[in-house]
């Protein structure tokens, strides 16, 4: 049985059907005029050989082509792209089935940050009354390492609401290079979680090593196709309307190999996309449709996911503002566009502008988490632990986010209003109405133990004390102390023998490690 996620029966929609169709039409027109600038020769040739109008751009410091994609190619691609994408997992119970026609939301971590935020709780003494001592959480940023990635995957394995894993931290150890980063980040993730693992690829040269590793874990080529324990995300698009050379090549190679892939575009309204809602939607939709079209031209039937990460620019820095209200609007709209095409949607919520956990972080995260969840994207990169607009990861924050998602999932349970329920309730009301105390408390007890009542906030302090961070920290350490099901010793041994570049310290069966 795949993971349940949470089914949204009536997804939140901001646009009318007519508005959605108008955006679609405008995107198609944009793909034809002005078209997109493609820096990858193979992609340009592929489009050209299927009837797109491809002309070299000159003068240009690098070879590039203007590609005008006709509506016919886009429509055929939408038609041939699978409407349901299966993302496998080491533990088959953690499989995700993303159906474009079903707004079943799965909550996913990620994405890659450079900074890992540690927390400790130093004690402070009150100046005016030295007998009073308090502890205050302090956050310390540092560069992420492969050990951090293992730790994050380990905790994410145990986060109840988290359905799939996108790596949370960029591994920047001294012995990590361009040539061994991919195998190490995939292995560190796969070895510490039995949930689905999605990642980008740093070096195309590592693709086959990563796939060989996945085959060894899944049990073979066919087994990997049946149970794709890994998938990829590629940012082949550089907004506005450009296909980057290297990531487009990576995208093409992954499509050839038939593994699930997200076509991701992340335009910034106000700088790399129009500031107005209609503008960023027309553009991002055109960019994603162009990627989907390429995927189907390269390998018809490639399991492709409509990846939308639209964001508004901050007016003070022109940086991304994931905390902006409009960012949630764009994401909700994109979920609606993906649904319009019947394709599974990768969406984004929960990323916040603030740099450390706290009130602003909670407000920004909950705001977008609730609204974007309600819009029903099948694969919601809801950024467990992410802070400072995708720059910082804090494991403590990830644990806090899990509590938020428990609340959101509980809220989204369907109401139980059936005939037998009504009859029971009417009897209860009649029975209580004639008692002197008129209290329903005695009826609560079975319900209380049936799981039908929401639990208090997970990190509620005693009395009026706010101990949220300290309690979440305790929880984080509890989760770290829980074992994870590593890849078995025999497979691990084969992986270390056959896959070059793996760091020996990642082998948990190495002497002194297990």
């Amino acid at each position: 049985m795949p993971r349940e996620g949470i089914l949204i029966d009536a997804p939140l929609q901001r646009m009318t059907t007519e508005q959605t169709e108008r955006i679609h039409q405008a995107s198609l027109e944009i793909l034809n005029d002005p078209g997109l600038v493609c820096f990858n020769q193979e992609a340009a040739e592929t489009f050209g050989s299927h009837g797109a109008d491809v002309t070299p751009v000159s003068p240009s410091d690098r070879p590039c082509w203007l590609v005008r994609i006709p509506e016919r190619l886009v429509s055929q691609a939408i038609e041939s792209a699978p409407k349901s994408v299966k993302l496998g997992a080491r533990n088959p119970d953690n499989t995700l089935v993303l159906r474009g026609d079903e707004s079943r939301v799965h909550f996913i971590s990620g994405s890659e940050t450079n900074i890992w935020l540690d927390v400790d709780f130093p004690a402070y003494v009150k100046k005016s009354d030295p007998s009073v001592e308090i502890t205050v959480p302090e956050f310390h940023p540092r560069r992420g390492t492969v050990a951090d990635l293992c730790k994050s995957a380990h905790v994410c394995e145990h986060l109840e609401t988290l359905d799939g894993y996108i790596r949370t931290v960029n591994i920047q150890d001294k012995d990590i290079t361009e040539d061994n980063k991919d195998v190490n980040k995939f292995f560190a993730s796969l070895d510490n979680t039995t949930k689905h693992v999605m990642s980008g690829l740093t070096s195309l040269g590592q693709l086959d090593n990563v796939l060989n590793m996945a085959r060894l874990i899944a049990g073979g080529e066919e087994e990997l196709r049946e149970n794709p324990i890994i998938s990829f995300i590629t940012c082949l698009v550089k907004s506005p309307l450009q296909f980057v050379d290297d990531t487009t090549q990576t995208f093409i190679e992954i499509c050839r190999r038939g593994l699930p892939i997200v076509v991701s575009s992340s335009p910034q309204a106000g700088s790399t996309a129009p500031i107005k809602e209609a503008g960023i939607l027309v553009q991002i939709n055109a960019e994603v449709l162009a990627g989907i079209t390429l995927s189907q031209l390269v390998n018809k039937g490639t399991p492709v996911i409509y990846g939308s990460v639209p964001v508004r620019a901050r007016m003070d820095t022109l940086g991304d503002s994931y905390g902006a209200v409009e960012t949630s609007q764009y994401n909700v709209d994109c979920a609606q566009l993906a649904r319009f095409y019947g394709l599974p949607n990768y969406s984004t919520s929960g990323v916040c502008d603030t740099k450390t956990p706290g009130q602003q972080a909670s407000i920004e995260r909950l705001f977008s988490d609730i609204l974007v969840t309600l819009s029903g994207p099948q694969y919601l990169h809801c950024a467990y632990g992410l802070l400072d607009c995708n720059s910082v990861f804090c494991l403590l924050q990830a644990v806090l986010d899990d509590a938020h998602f428990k609340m959101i999932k509980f809220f989204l349970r369907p109401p139980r209003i059936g005939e037998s329920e009504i009859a029971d309730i009417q009897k209860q009301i009649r029975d209580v109405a004639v008692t002197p105390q008129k209290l329903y408390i005695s009826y609560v007890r079975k319900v209380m133990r049936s799981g039908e009542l929401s639990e208090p906030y997970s990190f509620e302090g005693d009395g009026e004390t706010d101990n949220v961070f300290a309690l979440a920290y305790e929880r984080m350490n509890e989760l770290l102390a829980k074992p994870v099901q590593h890849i078995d010793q025999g497979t691990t041994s084969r992986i270390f023998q056959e896959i070059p570049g793996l760091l020996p310290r990642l082998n948990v069966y190495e002497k002194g490690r297990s």
Partner: protein
Amino acid sequence: MGEDIISALKENVIQGRKTKDDEGIDDDMAGKPAVLELTQQALDETIPVEDIISKGLTAGMEVVGEKFSSKEYFIPDMLASAEAVGAAMDILKPYLEDSNVEMKGKFAIATVKGDIHDIGKNIVAILLKGAGYEVYDLGIDVPTEKIVQYVKENNPDFLGLSALLTTTMVVMSEIIEGLKENGVRDKVRILIGGAAVSDEYAREIGADAYCVDGFGAVKVLEAFGQVKA
């Protein structure tokens, strides 16, 4: 046989089952004799009232208290058990005079004039009855004169006053003044509670204690050392 009944009585207090129709917590309990039926059965079997209370009802409530402290039980569980024990005490009342069991005291409780809120008052009444107090509920929106008169005529050991509203809490002060004027203030210990009042307010108006909730009331009474006023 007697031990079986007492043991079942204790277990049913823990389950919070007053009558055989109650579900309790464990599965398949409905239909089996509960606290009321078992108390009657114990009397029929001439089991000493002291044993029924101390080894059955009180022993059960002690376990409930422990489970509440360890957060295995919540207030609805505590109330269900207390209500079952209170109902059993009603059955046992006629037999108490002939036994060595002494009730913990008479507790009169009321929501003051102008205030009709009674959830808190009712919960306090259930918990205190379950804890072994004779509880006399005077109701809601009770006129000051009626409360003063009740105290004069019935000599309760404790008087509990409840007010939810800031507009009605001042009535508590009037009641205390009325008791003083009638010379009975020192014969009763006054506990106040409700959303509008506080420890500070209790001191201000000359009440004996403020109770944050029903459990607070039980604790306050225990702190009084169960000494009757």
